[in-house]
């Protein structure tokens, strides 16, 4: 198992380098001048050159990449052009917010998705199955920024139960695990959980239906197991796939929630990316994308390892 993990880690290294190269290139290939946002419109040519030098944009691209990578490996992702703060600390802070939200949303999604999936798989073709399938189809297809706005209108504006936007009470910048902070998470987490609910429900339903049609289910009945005994076997057989889908969903939600984080002004990576794009803040954009990609690679790795632990049929060689 250890050897397997080590081998997978080694394999992940070139992926990380490749990802670093791709996000560096993407950001530099995009049109626009990053210095426009920091320079006054009437800046002199001398000031411009000074800034270009300060940010290192005068060096050839390969050298820029090499330098960036070298610093990145030491935990220094450069300075944000727009805010002047260290990119690493901004990204780190935002990742914390996004991760909390993504994990909560995925947990909600996993609970409801598994429930709908098991109900659908067990009672195939019944009205319960149709209801669960309809719910998951709606979950996958509804535009979630629209759902987010709807939730804000209903639960914040109309009912006034929960705050509409933000990542915590006014005037407090640090996160804390109390209701004053948690209440800000409720609406965005529910909004975000709709997609994983739908995806997990569909995966689990297909899994459960497939498992129940297998011969070993008859075998288990033939040795006298009751419905609950059978259920244990179905869960253990469905778990590897469900876990894999859940792990990947956390990855998607980490970087893919730009719209929802923007709607709720949740200070996560999505909001950070959004502002970095609009401000042409190259170091921030580059750093955020790279850290998100890192997360995705690591999550994939964890999912793979978890799957080999759960499913004995996957070879550990």
């Amino acid at each position, binding site marked *: 198992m250890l050897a397997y993990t080590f081998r997978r880690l080694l394999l992940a290294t070139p992926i990380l380098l490749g990802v670093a190269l791709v996000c560096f290139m993407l950001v530099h290939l995009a049109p626009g001048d990053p210095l426009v946002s920091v320079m006054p419109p009437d800046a002199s040519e001398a000031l411009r050159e000074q800034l270009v030098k300060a940010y290192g944009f005068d060096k050839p691209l390969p050298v820029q990449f090499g330098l960036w990578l070298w610093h990145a490996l030491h935990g220094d992702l450069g300075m944000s052009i727009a805010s002047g703060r260290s990119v690493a600390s901004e990204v780190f802070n935002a990742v914390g917010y996004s991760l909390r939200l993504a994990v909560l949303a995925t947990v909600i999604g996993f609970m409801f998705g598994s429930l709908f999936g098991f109900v659908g798989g067990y009672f195939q073709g019944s009205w319960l199955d149709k209801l669960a399938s309809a719910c998951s189809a709606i979950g996958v297809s509804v535009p979630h920024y629209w759902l987010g706005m709807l939730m804000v209108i209903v639960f914040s504006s109309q009912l006034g139960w929960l705050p509409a936007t933000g990542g915590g009470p006014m005037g407090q910048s640090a996160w804390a695990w109390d209701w004053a902070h948690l209440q800000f998470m409720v609406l965005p987490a529910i909004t975000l959980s709709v997609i994983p609910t739908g995806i997990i429900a569909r995966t689990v339903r297909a899994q459960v239906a497939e498992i129940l049609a297998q*011969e*070993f289910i008859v*075998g*288990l009945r*033939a*040795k*006298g*197991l009751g419905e609950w005994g059978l259920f244990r076997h179905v869960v*253990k057989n469905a778990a590897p796939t469900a876990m894999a889908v859940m792990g990947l969903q956390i990855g998607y939600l980490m970087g893919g929630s730009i719209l929802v984080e923007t709607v709720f002004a949740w200070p996560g990576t999505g909001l950070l990316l959004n502002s970095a794009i609009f401000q042409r803040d190259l170091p921030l954009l580059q750093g955020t994308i790279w850290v998100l990609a890192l997360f995705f690679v690591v999550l994939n790795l964890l999912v793979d390892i978890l799957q080999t632990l759960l499913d004995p049929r996957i070879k550990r060689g």
Partner: protein
Amino acid sequence: MSEQPMVAVQDLKVRFKRGGQTLAAVNGVNLSVARGEVLALIGESGSGKSVTLRALMRLHAERSTRIEGRIEIAGQNLMALSRRQLQALRGPVAAMIFQEPLLALDPVYTIGQQIIETLRRHRPMPRAAAREAALEALRSVRIPSPEQRLDAYPHEMSGGMRQRAMIALALACQPKLLLADEPTTALDATVQIQILILLRELQQALGLSIIFVTHDIAAAVEVADRIAVMYGGRIVEQAPLAELLNNPQHPYTRVLLGTRPKDGLRKGERLVSIPGAPPDLANLPAGCAFAPRCPQASDLCRSEVPAIEAVLADHSVCCHHWNRLPI
């Protein structure tokens, strides 16, 4: 027969509802198996032999299946049992082994876990004792290095070992009746014979009753005391092994035995096959199901289902013309 039979089935009918269609898979089967007797149920695919076997333990999905008739196992009326009573019967009274153990065993549990689960389901016992009993069960089927097999997953073993493990699982709770659903079909020829010998030995040592479903007459000959031939969801002929082989009466039994190359198939010799196709279970003919393929069929055969007639005391046949057929 002085003592009560292990299995007594009267007029068993099994219907599957599939889409708008009704499949008449079993159409009035009567059979009885004495204690310690091995009955082989042979026939083509779709003849209803496996369906009959599964109906004996009421393993078909309740929603889409209708079972009629009378099923008695060890004196208990299966049709009257509650779900809980049925579960208590499956395992300690009647157990089943399947054609493909790789599909019939749960792939994500070890062999040991699966045997222990069965044992503890029926007899509350500490885990360590159950493990010891599971090991004993594996030893009794003479699996090589049983201690290792206990912690092996089904996919880690060879086909023959898996089938031995499944037999160990089935016999773990000391049932009196073993239902074997083509247990040798998926195995290599050399392994087949080993499994058949093992089954025969276990049957004699434990005094088991076995119903052995197969399409392979050679396998049936190895283990059976009595053979019942099925066609179109009915038993068309039933007799002790030697009697059936030497004195087959039903035209279907005759062609079935004729398809078996007597001294091996020689090069250039054609394999005998039965012309026509097995009956469509959604649309069975009004009379004898074999009539469309039978060389001796008459109008009577096509319009009326023949009754069961006795050739000898223990040899019955279901054919209008059995005593008028050319020998």
